[in-house]
Structure formats: structure tokens, C-alpha cells
């Protein structure tokens, strides 16, 4: 699990961990049932107070993102929660902002852009279907 903490940006260290774990889950780099490093191990790796790691894990547990399994460790929850959805939308929002800025640069109107998105969606959806038909045909 790739986590980086810094005291330069001022935000509390436990919150930096919470946000980064949320991001890793949302981005799929942490999968359901993946184990988080034990508190002590992460504390020694990041050189931070173990109580801080414990607090971050507690917050993640309260948010339903991770589950404690007794003394066995802390695992990424199997079910996706609305909070994860929110995180995923946040990641997409950043991409969309770039897209909107580029569309404006290229003089593509908002309606044209929306139409293009719908078009691309149709093509993407039809292609796997076409691939399935083809593979079905060869197997017969």
C-alpha cells in the first residue's frame, strides 16, 4: 500500500492516510478483502505515531471502507459504499474538467461534446457485443 505523509501541507496526518486509502480503494488499487498493513508496521514505515495510524483505521472503519476481523487484521470491505462512489465521481470530475477545458479550446460547443460522449458510448457498447457474436460464430 503506497502511502505518503507530509507535515508541510498542514492537514492532520491521520486525515492524509484516510484520504489516500479512500483514493486507493476508489482507484481499484486496493481491492475488496485486501489486507491493510498492521498498525505497527505502517507506523514504523512512515515514522509516525502508531496511535495516528490507529485513528485513521478507525475512521475508515466508521466510514464502512474497511472491516476489522478480530485480531486478524484490517481488510478492505467487500461491499462498495456510497462514499466510495463519491470518491470515484471525484476522480472522474477531474478528468471531465480537463475535457471541458480542451473542448472550449477546440471550439466544440457543450451540446456537441455531450452528443460526442453519447456517440462514443454507443460505439464502445456495440463493439464488445460484436466481438461476442464473432467469437460465438467461430466456436460453432
Amino acid at each position, binding site marked *: 500500500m503506497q502511502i505518503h505523509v507530509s507535515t508541510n501541507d498542514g492537514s492532520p*496526518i491521520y486525515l492524509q492516510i484516510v484520504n489516500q486509502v479512500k483514493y486507493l480503494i476508489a482507484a481499484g488499487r486496493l481491492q475488496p478483502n485486501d489486507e491493510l498493513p498492521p498498525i505497527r508496521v505502517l507506523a514504523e514505515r512512515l515514522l509516525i505515531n502508531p*496511535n495516528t495510524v490507529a485513528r485513521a483505521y478507525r475512521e475508515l472503519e466508521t466510514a464502512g471502507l474497511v472491516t476489522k476481523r478480530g485480531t486478524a487484521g484490517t481488510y478492505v470491505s467487500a461491499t462498495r459504499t456510497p462514499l466510495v462512489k463519491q470518491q470515484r465521481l471525484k476522480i472522474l470530475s477531474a478528468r471531465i474538467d480537463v475535457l471541458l477545458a480542451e473542448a472550449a479550446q477546440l471550439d466544440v460547443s457543450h451540446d456537441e461534446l455531450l452528443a460526442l460522449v453519447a456517440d462514443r458510448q454507443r460505439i464502445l457498447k456495440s463493439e464488445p457485443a460484436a466481438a461476442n457474436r464473432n467469437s460465438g460464430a467461430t466456436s460453432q
Partner: protein
Amino acid sequence: MIAQNLENSESVIEIERVTRAFGKKMALGEISLSVPRGVVFGLVGANGAGKTTLIRHVLGLLKAQQGSVRVFGRDPVADPVGVLSRVGCLSEENDLPGWMRVGELMRYTQAFYPGWDETYAEELRRAFALDPSVRVKHLSKGQRARAGLLIALAYRPELLVLDEPSSGLDPIVRRDILGAIVRTIADEGRTVLFSSHLLDEVERVSDHVAMLDQGRLAFAGAMDDIKQTHHRLTLVFAEARREPPALQGVLAWEGAGRQWTALVSGRLAELRVAAIGQGAQVVDERPPSLDEIFVAQVGAIRTTAEEVS
């Protein structure tokens, strides 16, 4: 029975109204602090703020002229054996006997502490790459700090006291020292008191912080509380101003013209209302680092002191 109660009390160190002067110079003025069991307590302050003097009181090397110091409920001056047998310490000057070889230093220290853990000591010696046949005086500054750390940790003391442990050391030795603090505290029920002027280190590992300035306690509290009650607000005013407005809770201002940034202590909602009341727009807010809080707090205290005198 009473001793039993004291042993179980929540505070490992209890400092009450300790005052100390060296000649005419006041080194500590009515310092009261309590260090709860199981925390990392960071003592911060500029050079000459009184950190080392306070630590020397905790270790029983100085007797309080006024006030009292209790460690594990005992007076470290009256009962040095009862206290120091449970304390591991490392100081900046690190007064290890230079003529001893590393191996001799380990056996020598072991003789004083029944709780010495030979396996752990050997593990640390290897991790720190300390050659047992080398004399202490021939070790580099960093290696000497590691040797000091080894003998402070190997009997697994209940309380680890570090006075400016990383002062003047390279980043790799500093990592070893921070690692030792983290491992010590990860062992249930152990406590660490350490002083440092590197606020980044303190912010990383401490649960509690006390700030000394010119022998006085500037402020003390749990790290989470300190972080939650301090804010950095950037305000934009309609008109350029020569001076920032008077706002309650502001410790320090920086800026010019229309844009000013305040480091404030207090409730965020109230601060925003007060700022808007002054005709300002809050354009940015973020939590300050411990370093910024320290500079602002000390600056505010000194300004007030000047105004009074």
C-alpha cells in the same frame, strides 16, 4: 497501598509549578505539565527556551528550587534508583565513556539493568551496524548516537527520555531515532518524552506537545486539539490596507494590500463571521503546520510581553 495507586495513575510524569533560576537568569518559570502514560510527548522551543533544564529535572539531575517533579509518582532526586531504573535516556551531549569498546559498553550497561534484553540489544547492534570492538571515542557522531540509543532501549524502559536526540545528525540516524520512538510507543504502555527544535519530527510522532519560550510554558495540549483549534485564513478586502484589522484570536498576520493571511486560534465558524464582519472575503483556509503554529504563538506572546512592559 498509596504507592500502588501512584503506580497506576494515568500520568507518568507530573511537573507542578517548577521554577528554576541560574543566578539571576530565570531558566524555568512556574512550569506545570503532566505526561500521560502511553503517549509520545514532544517538548518544543527555541534554543535556550528551557527544554534541557526541564528534562534534567525529570531525570533528577537538577533539584526543583520551587515546585515538584514526580516520575512514576516518585521524586527523582530523592529516589534516583526507583526512577532511573525504569527510564531510558539519550541526551544531545551523549556522555558515553569514550575509552570503552562498544561491546564493553553493552556489558557494562547490562550490569546495571536486570531487565536488559540481550537478544534485543544484539538485534539493535546489528541494525545500527555497530562494531563491538571499536572504542566509543572513535565512533562518528551518528554512530555514537546509535550506541547511546542502543543502551537506552535494550532494557525496554517504561519511559524513554530523549533530549534533542537528532540535533546535528544526518537524516539516516534521525530515521533510526524516530523509528526507536515509534517502536517504543507501539509496545503497550510505554511512554516517550522528547525535546526537539525540528517541528516536523515532533508533528509526526507526538500525541502531545508542550511549547516552551524563554522559560515559560507557551502552550501545551494534545496534537489533535492543537491542529483543530488553529487555522490559516486568507482574506481579501475590498480596499488595500496598510495594516490588518484587529480580529479576536489572530496570532499572526502576513500580507499586504488587499490580501492578508491570518494564523488564528479559535473556532472556525466564529472567525469566519468576524472576518466577513470586517468586510473581508475568505478566499482560502487550510490547517497550519505545527511549525507555523509555533512561530505564531511565540510571536504573539512576545508582542504581548512588550506591550505590557
